[in-house]
C-alpha cells in the first residue's frame, strides 16, 4: 500500500493569537508551531497500515520554509519520505487542496489520509476537496478504519453528533482522521536521527500553475467580542447557590 498523508503546520493549540493591526493575519513571533493534531492521527494510521500490509508512507505538506520542522517530525514518527509544496504566502483551502491533489497525482497512491480539520483555519475542507478533485470516494471524521486488501475496500466508522455510522467504500480513497482513531506514537531518538537523512522533495506552488484567483478571500481578522465583567459569588454554599439561581432567572433571564 502506498499511503499519502497530508500534514499541516499550525500554531500550538495553547498559543494566544494576536491579530495584526491591518487585520490581514496574525503575528507569528513567539508562536510554537506543531503538526496539526488531527494530522498526527493520520500519520499514525498510515504507519499502522504499512506495518500490517507493507508499502510506503509519504508525507505531503504545503507552506513556508518553517514547515520543514513538522515534516521532519512526521518522518521521525516513521514516514518514509516527504514532498513539500513551498510558498511564502497564505493559502486558502481550495488552493491547498488543488496543490496537494496535483502532488498526489504525480506520486500515485492507494490511500490518502488527511486530518479532519486544520486547527488554524478550521475549514474541514481539504480532504473532501482532494477526493472530489481526483474523483475518489471519501470518508471523513473517521474513528475506526479497516483495510481489506483482497477486495480493495475500506470499512470505516465515522463520528456524528451523538452517534456514529459505518461507511464502506472502495479504495483508492481519501480518509480524514478524527481523534479516537488511534494513539499517535512519539518519535524515538534513533528515528529522529534517521529522519534527518530521509528524502524531502520540494516543489514550488507556482510550478503547479494553478488558477490565480482564490475561491475565498478573508477581508479581515478581528477579535471576538469581550465578555462583560463577571459577577463572582463566594461564601456560604447555600446562599451563593440561591443567589446564582436568582441572577440567572431575574437578571440573565435564562431560567
Amino acid at each position, binding site marked *: 500500500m502506498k499511503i499519502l498523508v497530508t500534514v499541516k503546520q499550525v500554531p500550538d493549540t495553547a498559543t494566544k493569537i494576536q491579530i495584526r493591526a491591518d487585520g490581514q493575519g496574525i503575528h507569528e513571533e513567539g508562536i510554537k508551531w506543531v503538526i496539526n493534531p488531527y494530522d498526527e492521527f493520520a500519520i499514525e494510521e498510515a504507519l499502522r497500515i504499512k506495518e500490517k500490509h507493507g508499502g510506503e508512507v509519504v508525507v505531503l505538506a504545503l507552506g513556508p520554509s518553517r514547515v520543514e520542522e513538522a515534516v521532519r517530525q512526521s518522518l521521525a514518527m516513521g514516514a518514509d519520505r516527504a514532498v513539500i509544496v513551498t510558498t511564502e504566502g497564505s493559502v486558502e483551502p481550495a488552493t491547498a487542496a488543488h496543490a496537494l491533489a496535483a502532488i498526489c497525482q504525480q506520486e500515485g497512491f492507494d490511500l490518502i489520509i488527511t486530518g479532519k480539520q486544520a486547527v488554524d483555519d478550521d475549514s*474541514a475542507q481539504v480532504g473532501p476537496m482532494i477526493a472530489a478533485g481526483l474523483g475518489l470516494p471519501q470518508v471523513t471524521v473517521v474513528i475506526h478504519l479497516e483495510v481489506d486488501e483482497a477486495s480493495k475496500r475500506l470499512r470505516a466508522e465515522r463520528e456524528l453528533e451523538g452517534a456514529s455510522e459505518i461507511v464502506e467504500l472502495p479504495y483508492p480513497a481519501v480518509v480524514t482522521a478524527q*481523534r479516537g482513531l488511534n494513539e499517535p506514537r512519539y518519535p524515538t531518538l534513533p528515528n529522529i536521527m534517521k529522519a534527518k537523512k530521509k528524502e524531502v522533495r520540494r516543489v514550488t506552488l507556482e510550478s503547479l500553475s494553478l488558477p490565480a484567483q482564490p475561491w475565498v478571500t478573508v477581508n479581515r481578522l478581528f477579535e471576538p467580542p469581550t465578555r462583560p465583567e463577571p459577577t463572582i459569588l463566594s461564601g456560604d454554599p447555600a446562599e451563593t447557590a440561591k443567589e446564582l439561581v436568582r441572577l440567572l432567572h431575574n437578571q440573565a433571564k*435564562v431560567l
Partner: protein
Amino acid sequence: MANGVLVIFDQNAGDIRHVVLEMLTVARSLGKGPVTALTFGTDAAKTLPKLAEYGADRAVFWESYTQYSSDGFSAAIAQSFPQFDADVILFPANAWGKDLSARLSEVLGAGLATDCLHLEAEASGRVKAIRPVYAGKALAEVVINTPVQMFSLRPNINAAEVHHVNPEVLDIAPSVDPATFQAVVVERKEAQTGTIELTEADIIVSGGRGMKAPENFQLLDALAAALGAAVGSSRPVADEGWVPHSYHIGQTGKVVSPTVYFAIGISGAIQHLAGISGSKYIVAVNNDPEAPIFKVANYGIVGDLFEVVPRLTEEIKALKAQQ
C-alpha cells in the same frame, strides 16, 4: 441569472434539526431569490409542514436516496443544480453537512466558508460571512469569489423565526443511480437515547477533573435533569474514561454554543475555552478563585462543587416547581 438560496440538510424519519430552521431564517434574511429546501431519504416529504412554517418557498425531496453517500449525493446535486435556480447554498455545519458541502464545493467549483456564525448580503449580491478561526480565538470576515457561494452554518447561533408559506414541491428527480454510489453508509449506531446532543443543547452542564471520580458525575446528571440540560466534560475526564468520548468539549472535541454553559470543576484551559466561547452565558463553579475560567465567566461561585452543586440542583427544582 439564478439568485435563489438552496438549503441542503439531512433529516431522520421526518424530524429535522433546529439548525435547519435557523438556516431557513438566515436564507430569507439574505433577501435574495426563492429559498429552496433539499433533503433526502425515507420520509423526506414529512418535513414539509416544518418547511412551510419556517419559510421555504420550494422543496425538493429525494426519497429514493435512502443511504447517504458523499460522492453520490454531491454528483446528483451538481447535475440538478441549474434547476434549483440558486447562487447561494447553505448547509448545516454538522458532520453530515461538512462532509457533503466540502465535496460539493470542489465538484461545483464553488467557494465554501465553513461553520459560519453570521451571513449578510451586500448590495452586489455577494454574501459576507463571519466565521471563527483558530478555534474561536479570532473571527474572520470572508467573501466567496466564485459565482456560486457556499456556506455551512454553526447550529444554535442564529434565531429561527416562523414565517408561514405554502411551499411548492418541485418535481426534480435525482439523476444519479444509487447503484453507482461508491462510499455508502451501511449502518448507523445511535448513542444512548434520551440524551440531548451537545452541539444543539440550550443548556450544558459540564464537569472537569474537579469532579474527582466518575461516580460523582451523578451530581451533574441530577443538575442537568433539573435544568433539562445536556452533560459535557473537559478532555482529561473523557480521556480517563469517566465519561464517554462524545462528552469532550473544546478545541479538539465538540464546539458548543448553548445559552448557558455551566463549567463545574473545570479550570478553563485555553483549549477548553476554544470549545465554549460561543456560549451566551458561562457559569463557573470552582474552589480556586484564581482559576482562568472566572476570567471568561458571566457568573461564578467560588466554592466546593460538592457543596454547591446539590444546592444548585435544589434551587433550580424549586424555581421550576413555581413556574
